[in-house]
């Protein structure tokens, strides 16, 4: 019995992309936060006229009192305390472009000195040293991009 090799044919694979575009507007209140972050490297939010609590993120209506929040703008501290953290090693992909994000990916819930909770990345990438991280301060990107909290690069450990 002889084995005959069939002549192999070239097969064509067609690659294509149909990206979906969308628009998202920050609105006036988030826009104020994004503008201050971009231009002045500051975090701002507004205060509820009724309960006098900070609204975070800045919004037109206080979620607790259901009243119009108004324009009582407050500058927030860029320092805070780490409440909890996660050390993510699993590689993640950008859903928009299919690119891999850098990992490990230490992310923490930070209570800012104004009492506002915020989730952001940490600079410290050593899992052992992460356990002792207490006080952190925001490190801003050199050039603001108008992306709000995305203009913060990460939170850096500080000694106090």
């Amino acid at each position, binding site marked *: 019995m002889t084995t005959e090799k069939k002549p192999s*044919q*070239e*097969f*064509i*694979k*067609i*690659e*294509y*992309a*149909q*990206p*979906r*575009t*969308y*628009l*998202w*507007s*920050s*609105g*006036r209140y*988030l*826009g*104020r936060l*994004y*503008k201050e972050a971009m231009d002045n490297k500051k975090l701002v939010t507004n205060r509820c006229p009724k309960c006098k609590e900070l609204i975070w993120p800045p919004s037109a209506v206080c979620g607790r009192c259901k009243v119009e929040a108004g324009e009582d703008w407050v500058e927030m501290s860029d320092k805070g305390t780490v409440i909890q953290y996660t050390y993510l090693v699993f590689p993640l992909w950008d*859903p*928009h*472009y*299919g*690119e891999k994000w850098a990992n490990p990916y230490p992310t923490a819930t930070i209570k800012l000195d104004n009492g506002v909770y915020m989730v952001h990345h940490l600079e410290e990438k050593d899992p052992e040293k992460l356990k002792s991280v207490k006080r952190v301060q925001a490190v801003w990107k050199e050039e603001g*991009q*108008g*992306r709000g909290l995305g203009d913060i690069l990460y939170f850096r450990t500080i000694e106090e």
Partner: protein
Amino acid sequence: MSEHVADVVERLPDADVFVYHGRIFIPDAYTAGAVGSKFLIELRDNKRIMGTKCPACSRVYVPARSTCTECFEQLDQWVEVSDKGTVLTYSIACQPTVAQPVPAPIVYGIIHLDGADTGLVHMIGEVEFEKLHVGMRVQAVFKEQRTANILDIKYFRPL
């Protein structure tokens, strides 16, 4: 493929409002199969438009396919069809979308090539919209750089 266009942040003047022009990238691919691959390779290598002929009913399918839709016969007889044909119908698309192969406006047409029995969906170029009409004679224009894609035919131009 995979041109990564970064999100654009648009800052509205005098309003402190930011508008994000986002883009969700959806890469996809399909294999043309044995018959489809041969059809595309002929376009790329020989600038020939090939069809398959049914041995039972003598229909010629362009683009080539492996089975006759009327008699269910296996189509293994390849025939070359002309690069000239007649416009069966057409449509002008002026609305730009991200999925279009070339910038708008695009004239899409179904072209009945000489020697074929089916219509080929493609674009019509080098034409003034007022002069478009059904029954118009057109000829295929091939690209210089061909990559075994149906867009190796740039468009059909009027004769």
